[in-house]
């Protein structure tokens, strides 16, 4: 857990990812509110456009990184039993990875 750059690295990734998440969410909200797409087919087309597709892909990866760092921090604060903590870490990684694969898969399918 204690690679030389670990603390600083996680900290800066958490902050940079937060900026991207915030900006992208605002972008998607803007697209929703001014509903350029109202039907399922139009939404598929929206997501299939390269900018939105890549943007969403980066969003998913960034979200997973952000969630990992945040949840890891909470477990490090509150769960001190090593066995329990490692189990929870493993579960967390599993859930995050599976959600990531599932989400990225639908991004590719929409193309």
């Amino acid at each position, binding site marked *: 857990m204690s690679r030389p750059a670990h603390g*600083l690295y996680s900290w800066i990734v958490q902050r940079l990812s937060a900026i991207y998440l915030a900006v992208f969410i605002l972008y998607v909200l803007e697209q929703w509110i001014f509903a350029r797409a109202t039907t399922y087919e139009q939404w598929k087309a929206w997501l299939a456009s390269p900018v939105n597709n890549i943007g969403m892909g980066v969003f998913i990866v960034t979200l997973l990184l952000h969630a990992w760092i945040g949840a890891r921090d909470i477990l490090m604060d509150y769960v001190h039993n090593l066995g329990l903590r490692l189990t929870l870490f493993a579960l967390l990684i599993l859930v995050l990875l599976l959600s990531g694969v599932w989400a990225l898969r639908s991004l590719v399918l929409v193309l």
Partner: protein
Amino acid sequence: MKFSIYRYNPETGEKPYMQEYVLRDIDPGMMLLEALMRLKQDDETLSFRRSCREGVCGSDAMNVNGRNMLACITPLASLREPVVIRPLPGRPVIRDLVVDMSDFYRQYRAVKPYLIVNDPEPEVERLQTPEERERLDGLYECILCACCSTACPSFWWNPDRFLGPAALLQAWRFLADSRDQATDERLQALEGPYRMFRCHTIMNCVDVCPKGLNPTRAIGRIKHLMLKRSF
């Protein structure tokens, strides 16, 4: 004036309890420490630390009505009744309001709170410009009363591995000192997920510091310096 004070004596084996006290002779402008000392005249088993009684030594930090503060510089008039007094949170209690500060001091020692200079000793003093000296304002004034660290949830959960706001303020005090030559070693020692990065900018430290210091800002400055140095 009514007081409710945490009592615990490990020698009797009795469970900790809150004891009610009433103090009748109160002078205008009286501080909480004076009230405690008058209560102690009637009940000499009541234990607490105190020394300078003017907010300089940092001995009489305690949790009053839910906030950490120095009893000696807290006017009684500013407190709501009954005044609930407990020991500093999260520390093992030795007796009544006296807590074990070992973890706190160990973390303070861990940041090497002294100048590290590799150059040979100069003939005259190590001089600073007024601007260089100014950078230490808001840092050197810390009296190590532990109000901040014991108000910090990150320190409650990991007092053995997280340095805590007081020690981190001192870490920055020496990083910011123009005469110190151990910047890289100091930053290296603060790396890792625990020693500094358990700080989640909760800012309880800033809220309770009786000297008005800002450990959160100091921690932010350390992170900035670390970031600059790593590129």
